[in-house]
C-alpha cells in the first residue's frame, strides 16, 4: 500500500515537471516560429503555419502505431493476463484519441494554409485524401467504442485497429496511384520543398514541443482511463456483493481489498 501511494506521488511529480518542460519548449517553439524564423520568400507570413502543420502531420502518423501495437498486445494478453490486457487497452484508446487530435490539427491548419496560398480550402490531392481517411478511420474506431455495450468494447476496438493498420498502406498507395493518374491542377508548389537552413531550428523545436505535448496528454489520458477501469471493476464487484446478501454475514465487507 505504501509503495502504491509513493508511486502515485512520484507519477504526479513527474507529470508536473514534464508539463512544465513541455510548456517551456512550446514557448520556445512559438517564439522561433513567429519571431525568429525568416519570412517565407514566396508565401509570406502564411508560410509560418508550416511549423504547426508538419509536426502535427508527423505525430498524427506516429500515434496510430502506438494504438496498433497496444491493440496487438491487448489481443495477445486478453486470455493470458487480464491486468496487462486492461493496461494495453488503456494505451490503445488513449493513443487513438491523441491520433485524432493531431490529425484534426493537421487538417485544420492545412485548410487554413490552402485557403491563403491555393485560394481553396480543400483539394482531393492524394496526401489530403489519405490524411482525411486516416482521420475517418480513427473517428470510426472511437465511435464504435462509444456505441458498444460496456465490457465488450475492447476486443471490438482492437480488431478494428488491426484492420485500420492493414488499410492505411493500401489507402496510401491506391490514392496515390489514383491521383497521379489524374494530376490536380491546383497543386502547385510544395510546402516542404527547399526548406532553408535558417528555418530548421523553428521546425525542430516545434516538432519536439508537440511531441512532448502529445506524450503528456497520452500519459494523462492513460492514467484517466486506468482510473475509470478500476472504478468500473469496483462497481462490478459491489453489485456482485449486493446480489449475495449472505456472502459477508460473518465479518467486515471486503471491498477495500479488491485491489
Amino acid at each position: 500500500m505504501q509503495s502504491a501511494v509513493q508511486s502515485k506521488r512520484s507519477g504526479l511529480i513527474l507529470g508536473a515537471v514534464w508539463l512544465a518542460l513541455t510548456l517551456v519548449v512550446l514557448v520556445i517553439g512559438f517564439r522561433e516560429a513567429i519571431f525568429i524564423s525568416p519570412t517565407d520568400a514566396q508565401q509570406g507570413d502564411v508560410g509560418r503555419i508550416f511549423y504547426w502543420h508538419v509536426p502535427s502531420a508527423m505525430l498524427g502518423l506516429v500515434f496510430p502505431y502506438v494504438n496498433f501495437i497496444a491493440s496487438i498486445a491487448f489481443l495477445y494478453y486478453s486470455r493470458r493476463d487480464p491486468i496487462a490486457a486492461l493496461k494495453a487497452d488503456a494505451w490503445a484508446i488513449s493513443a487513438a484519441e491523441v491520433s485524432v487530435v493531431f490529425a484534426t490539427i493537421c487538417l485544420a491548419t492545412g485548410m487554413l494554409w490552402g485557403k491563403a496560398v491555393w485560394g481553396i480550402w480543400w483539394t482531393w490531392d492524394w496526401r489530403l485524401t489519405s490524411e482525411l481517411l486516416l482521420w475517418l478511420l480513427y473517428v470510426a474506431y472511437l465511435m464504435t467504442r462509444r456505441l458498444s455495450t460496456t465490457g465488450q468494447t475492447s476486443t471490438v476496438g482492437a480488431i478494428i485497429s488491426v484492420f485500420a493498420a492493414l488499410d492505411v498502406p493500401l489507402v496510401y498507395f491506391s490514392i496515390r496511384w489514383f491521383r497521379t493518374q489524374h494530376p490536380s491542377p491546383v497543386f502547385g508548389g510544395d510546402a516542404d520543398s527547399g526548406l532553408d537552413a535558417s528555418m530548421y531550428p523553428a521546425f525542430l523545436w516545434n516538432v519536439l514541443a508537440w511531441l512532448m505535448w502529445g506524450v503528456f496528454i497520452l500519459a494523462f489520458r492513460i492514467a484517466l482511463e486506468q482510473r475509470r477501469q478500476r472504478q468500473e471493476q469496483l462497481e462490478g464487484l459491489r453489485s456482485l456483493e449486493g446480489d449475495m446478501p449472505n456472502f459477508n454475514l460473518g465479518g467486515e465487507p471486503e471491498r477495500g481489498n479488491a485491489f
Partner: protein
Amino acid sequence: MNFYGHVMAHLRKDLRLEWRSRDSITGMLFFSLLVVVVFSFAFDPTAAVSRQIAGGILWMVLLFASTQTLNQAWNREQRNNVLDAQRMAPSSAAALFLGKSLANMIFVTAVELVLAPLFTVFYNLHALGQGWLLLVVMPLGTWALVANGTFFAALGLRTRNRELMLPLVLFPISIPALLAMMQATTGILTGESEPDLWIRVLVVYDVVFTTACLLLFETLLNAE
C-alpha cells in the same frame, strides 16, 4: 468432418434458409432498383455522361444494398441462441465465417446478375473497353464488400446501434477496394484507361483482408 465439410454445411444451411424465406435477395433487388431510379434523377442519364459515372453508381448501389442485407445476416443466428451453440461447437469459427460469406456472396451475385441488364437498359450502356474483364472485376469487388461486411456485421452483434455501426466501420475500411472497383469498372466502360492496376489492387485487398478476417473471427465471435 474437416474444415471444408464445415464450410459446406454452413453454406447449405444459409442457402436453404434463404431459399425458404427469400428475404435477402428480394429486398436487395427492389432496393437496388429504387436506387437506380433515384440516381437517374440526380443526373441526366444520357449515354455520354452516364458512361463516366455508371461504374461508380453501380458500386454505390451494390454497397448500399449489400449493407442492408449484411446487417440482417447474423440475425438468423441470434434467434433461439443459435450463436451460442455455434460458439460451443467443435468446428472452427473461421468455417462459420467462410460459409456465411460465401452465402452472402451468392446472394449479392444473384442481385448483380439481375441488375446488370437493368443498368445497360436504363443508362444506355455498352462497354467500350474489354467488357469480359467485368467478369473478373465484379466477383473480386463483390467479395471485398461481402467478406469485410460479413465480418463487421458480426462485430455489430455486440453494439447497441447495429444498423448504424456497420457502414460506420465498413465504409472507411473498404475505401481502397471501392476506389479500385469503381476505377476498374469506369476504365472498362469508357475504354479510356487500363484497369490492370486496379484489378491488382483488388486482388491484394481481397487476399489481405480475407486472411485477416479468417484469423480474427474466432476472437470476434468469442469476445466477451
